[in-house]
């Protein structure tokens, strides 16, 4: 079936196929008759069209009701200059480019991307998901020649394009660190132990190490504190305000080139605080009785689990104090 694309705001004249101008015809849109006031002879006139005029238009000969012409009208706009972004989050493997249109065109668009490196044209392999994305593998490393990426958008009403030119090093930006965990440190009311992992998309942290930027603040304050770490994937905060809940984030960057990643998922943690007194006395009584008997008695469960420890990527409370206590008991019985 025939599709007719027209610009928003245009005046559209539809002819009833090969019928003469003075023939008697009836026009319908989506099955509904169109009033004669919109006709000029056998031509259908639509003025200043917008999306509301989208539909299936048919033209029938007056008396015989033969279908003489039909079309689908799609109102849209030619593409505006597309937005293109290229980034290497997996250096030195390669880079990807992704794009989108700043405003919708309301009609189908096709995208063509070309990557030129010096005199060579490289193929950017389109990703299945997400759709507007393609990736390229580096054939050479440490190139002095820039990459030139041109994206052309075409639809039935026009075309547009944009170009990006960059050095291999300029587009390196890792993904944020993963599995950020913040835990209180027992018997240390001003400390928080933070650990994280390299982003899984970074292929070779051995040869291309990452450095990290940590920021933290108590929820009640607006100002962040920052720490830059040149190696290691953990850090102990030693100046936390006692008893206050903290929000913590980490970002990553290649040690030498490129830009910082976005901030990681935020993690919350509160430093260790001393337990109220009556629970401690209960535990001490249990300890002295189990030393003289042969049966093993677990300390009260209310003291074991570390409520302050929260894993950022899942809601699992870590009960590692229990393990330590049980290990201590088993050593006593060797």
């Amino acid at each position, binding site marked *: 079936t025939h599709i007719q694309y027209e610009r928003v705001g245009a005046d559209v004249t539809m002819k009833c196929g090969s019928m003469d101008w003075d023939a008697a015809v009836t026009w319908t849109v989506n099955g509904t008759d169109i009033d004669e006031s919109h006709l000029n002879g056998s031509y259908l006139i639509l003025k200043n069209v917008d999306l509301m005029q989208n539909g299936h238009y048919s033209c029938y000969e007056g008396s015989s009701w033969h279908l003489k012409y039909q079309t689908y009208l799609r109102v849209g706009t030619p593409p505006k200059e597309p937005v293109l972004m290229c980034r290497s989050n997996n250096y030195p493997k390669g880079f990807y480019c992704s794009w989108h249109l700043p405003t919708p065109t309301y009609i189908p668009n096709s995208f063509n991307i070309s990557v030129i490196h*010096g005199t060579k044209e490289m193929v950017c392999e389109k990703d299945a998901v997400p759709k507007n994305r393609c990736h390229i593998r580096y*054939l050479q490393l*440490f*190139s*002095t020649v820039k990459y030139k990426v041109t994206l052309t958008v075409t639809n039935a009403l026009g075309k547009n394009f944009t170009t990006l030119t960059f050095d291999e*090093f300029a587009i390196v930006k890792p993904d944020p660190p993963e599995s950020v965990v913040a835990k209180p440190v027992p018997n240390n009311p001003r400390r928080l132990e933070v650990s994280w992992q390299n982003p899984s998309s970074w292929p070779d942290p*051995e040869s291309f190490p990452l450095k990290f930027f940590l920021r933290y603040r108590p929820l009640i304050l607006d100002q962040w504190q920052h720490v830059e770490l040149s190696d290691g994937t953990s850090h102990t905060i030693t100046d936390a305000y006692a008893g206050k809940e903290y929000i913590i984030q980490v970002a990553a960057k290649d*040690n030498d080139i490129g830009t910082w990643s976005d901030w990681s998922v935020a993690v919350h943690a509160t430093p260790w605080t001393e337990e109220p007194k009556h629970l401690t006395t209960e535990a001490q009584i249990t300890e002295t009785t189990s030393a003289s008997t042969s049966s093993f008695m677990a300390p009260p469960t209310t003291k074991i689990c570390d409520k302050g420890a929260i894993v950022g990527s899942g809601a699992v409370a870590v009960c590692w104090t229990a393990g330590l206590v049980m290990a201590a008991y088993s050593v006593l019985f060797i």
Partner: protein
Amino acid sequence: GDSWGIFTFLCAALCNLPALPALNCSEELGAGQSIQQTYDLTRYLEHQLRSLAGTYLNYLGPPFNEPDFNPPRLARTERVPSATVDLDLWRGLTDNARLAANYRAYSRLLCYLRVLDGQVGTAELRHRLAHFCASLQGLVLSIGGVMSSLGYPLPAGPPAPPGAPLASNDFLKKMDDFWLLKELQTWLWRSAKDFNRLKKKVPPAVVTLRLEAREF
């Protein structure tokens, strides 16, 4: 009883490990420190070059100082050693080859830079170039030091520096200068990665631990 005693003794010994003297590892430690120093030097030079290149390109004038300037590479400029390398080849380089490539590259780049220094107009630019050349000389010596401490022979000296410039006209000469700075910049980026790899591969300091045997 006795087994508990051994356990406590071992714990105590292991806890005091950092305090034990390192035996027979001064060479490996030396190379490790030199690699770190060479790495730091490349980062310092890269930082210096950023401001120097900006000034020099402004001296050359447009289009060389335009950020989007992306000229095609003319065959004649290949005499300047290129840092560009096939990814798998780069990964597979032996320590010796990796160091030698750096040594050769900076030796030659230094020669060309010195020629540049002799031709430049302003006194300020001459002074900055001279300072940069001195730092670059330090880098070459540092790389040489690492190679020697690891027992590798130094590559043969660079070819005699070019006399009169080979460029036939003023514009082509400026192009040569542009590419020289580009290659230097790229080499400094590459060296940071080269020395990162070397840092991991140089054997760690070997420490011998002597435990006294107890009679049981």
